[in-house]
């Protein structure tokens, strides 16, 4: 009874706080601009099914793919067990499904156990890869501090969770064998023999306490994990699904058109719609491109929150490979960190973040004197060759290039800045309709 009440209280608190946190993430993503979702919906479901659920892109690198798959499958399957934990917890019963399901129960929980062993092994190997083996993509400048700790913490959480599961099942197995039998027989595949091996011979009282520690430890780790997710790169286990669904379906080479500029140029060239309203010359000059998250699209921000920080993008980036400062992963992480910052500032209600101090701070009335350039340097975005390697590499279909191009557009169109080297290029295209101011005729090649 007491346990049930505690369980219900803990659950409500944990789920409530998690819900609040997820809502903040959702609201932060909404700070971005809306983007029309184009292309066949069937294609979107297919992407989500193959890439998020089927982990298709992971299989470009087989070792991490297999290890990650072990964790992923174990994670998905353990969720089945949660249902029982909730029923047991609320009603104060023990292994509610064991008797009604009988052999099937043994089968399901045994499967979870086997997967858990695999997950345990995978987690250990991941910890070794992260901390002992030198894998370049885990050791870039953006992977120090919190991102590094984050990666390790989650692996440690995973280990604790698995240890709790095995303690819970193992002691249960021993208690089943006591006379008089405590619990219904389950004969689980792993703890059926591992349990007696480790816990056999312990006092009944000790076993009962250990069983409770395992049970409570398990569910508490689940709650911790749930509340930790929104602060962590592990948010990808949820957001990978919407992110792969929303991923742009256009060819990778196609840059998003800017109709506002197209229409203006058409009018300039006399190609415009003659019935179009006269442009308002006194209107405030619009901002082109993005120097902050407000001008990024929601798809970009969703991507930023979905990032696994795996660094596959950076490890194939030609600029990064040759020692330039650009790292597409860092760009994506910066966009996320800036979204977090803006979201927290707006929530604080602090008037110092309001553009117009007489009005309450909001997404439309926001100015903290910062923008993405406080996170990302010009040097980084100038190094991009638009090669799309990062886009191709991303296991959850994030598009770092789109973010880079929006920054470049802002720099050139809104700030009239950018690399000096490009001025001759621009002049040449503008005045001579060609990319270089050299040569005479466009048919000179035929005259030899």
């Amino acid at each position, binding site marked *: 009874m007491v346990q049930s009440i505690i369980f219900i209280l803990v659950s409500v608190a944990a789920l409530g706080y998690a819900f609040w946190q997820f809502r903040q993430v959702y609201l932060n993503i909404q700070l971005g601009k809306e983007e029309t979702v184009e292309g066949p919906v069937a294609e979107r479901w297919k992407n989500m099914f193959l890439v998020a659920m089927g982990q298709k892109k992971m299989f470009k690198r087989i070792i991490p793919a297999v290890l990650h798959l072990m964790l992923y499958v174990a994670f998905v399957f353990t969720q089945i067990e949660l249902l029982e934990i909730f029923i047991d917890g609320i009603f104060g019963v023990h292994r509610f499904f064991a008797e009604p399901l009988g052999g099937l129960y043994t089968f399901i929980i045994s499967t979870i156990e086997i997967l858990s062993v695999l997950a345990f092994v995978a987690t250990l190997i991941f910890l070794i890869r992260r901390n002992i083996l030198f894998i370049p993509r885990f050791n870039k400048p953006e992977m120090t501090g919190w991102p590094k700790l984050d990666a390790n913490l989650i692996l440690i959480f995973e280990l604790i969770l698995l240890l709790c599961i095995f303690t819970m099942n193992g002691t249960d197995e021993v208690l089943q064998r006591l006379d008089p039998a405590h619990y219904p027989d389950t004969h689980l595949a792993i703890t059926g023999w591992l349990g007696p091996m480790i816990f056999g011979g312990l006092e009944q009282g000790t076993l009962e306490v250990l069983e409770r520690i395992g049970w409570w430890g398990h569910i508490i780790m689940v709650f911790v994990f749930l509340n930790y997710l929104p602060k962590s790169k592990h948010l990808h286990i949820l957001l990978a699904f919407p992110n792969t669904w929303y991923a742009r379906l*256009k*060819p*990778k*080479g*196609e*840059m998003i*058109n*800017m109709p506002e*500029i*197209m229409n203006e*140029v*058409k009018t*300039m*060239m006399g*190609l415009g719609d003659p019935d179009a309203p006269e442009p308002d010359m006194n209107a405030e000059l619009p901002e*082109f*491109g993005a120097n902050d998250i407000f001008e990024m699209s929601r798809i970009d921000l969703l991507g930023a929150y979905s990032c696994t920080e795996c660094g596959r993008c950076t490890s*194939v980036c*030609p*600029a990064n*490979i*040759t*020692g*330039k*400062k*650009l790292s597409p992963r860092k760009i994506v992480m910066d966009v996320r960190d800036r979204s977090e910052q803006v979201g927290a500032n707006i929530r604080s209600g602090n008037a110092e973040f309001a553009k117009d101090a007489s009005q309450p701070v909001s997404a439309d009335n926001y100015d903290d004197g910062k923008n993405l350039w406080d996170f990302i340097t010009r040097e980084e975005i*100038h190094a*991009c*060759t*638009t*090669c*799309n*390697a990062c*886009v*191709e590499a991303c296991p959850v279909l994030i598009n770092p290039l789109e973010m880079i*191009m929006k920054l*470049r*557009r802002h720099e*050139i*169109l809104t700030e009239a800045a950018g*690399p000096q080297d*490009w001025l*001759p*290029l*621009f002049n040449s*295209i*503008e005045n001579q*309709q*060609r*990319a*270089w101011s*050299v*040569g005479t*005729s*466009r*048919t*000179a*090649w*035929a005259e*030899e």
Partner: protein
Amino acid sequence: MTVKTMAQFAAENKIPEILFWVGCAGSFDDRAQKVTRAFAEILTSAGIEFAVLGDEEACTGDPARRAGNEFLFQMTALQNIETLNMYGVKKMVTACPHCFNTIKNEYPALGGHYDIVHHTQLLQELIDNGRIKMTGGGEFKGRRITYHDSCYLGRANGIYEAPRDVLQSLDTQLVEMKRSKTNGLCCGAGGAQMWKEDEPGDKRINMERVEEALGTGADVIAVNCPFCLTMMSDGVTAKEGGAMVYDLSELIVGGMAK
């Protein structure tokens, strides 16, 4: 070599089979001009009646757009679309994957709808349907060739096989680099990098790629893009040789029955 412009065809009230979009590099870069000539020669010997726009052609706007200069892109792109639509152009071919990508994927949103192929696709078609015949000999027979995927033909447009099929017809020994097809490494020129100094780093991108290409032991590096051609040639020169860099059409000209 005589080439006819769209204007000349129009004056004769004729429509050519295809418009050859030459591009800025193919028009003005010395090395890329050779590729343009080679490809024009192939078209001629395949009996294809083609036209060029000549001085009515303008930059597609790819480097401007990728530098972030959307205004300039729109200006030059809309001008091209006006010209192309005026002549009623439908079918096009180009030897530049940047022009190809822009016209194929970006002009439609601006009102320009054309059926454009990259020259490696057309070459494959001409070989497959026998409009050009390979001698089976030629100067590249039996040589070790490695093929460098350009980003704008490869990842941007998913064309990996057509150029490889074309190379197969040369009876050469095709060796792949470790980073090829979807994993191909950029030559370093895209995104308007061609027009600017590198950002500070340890190495130039083209050197990284050339080292990989030379590492295959190939003595020919085949490319499909005038910018890759420049970058890879510069890299090979900096390495003091070891391989020749050619565009696919140059290789075909060397191996086809004339």
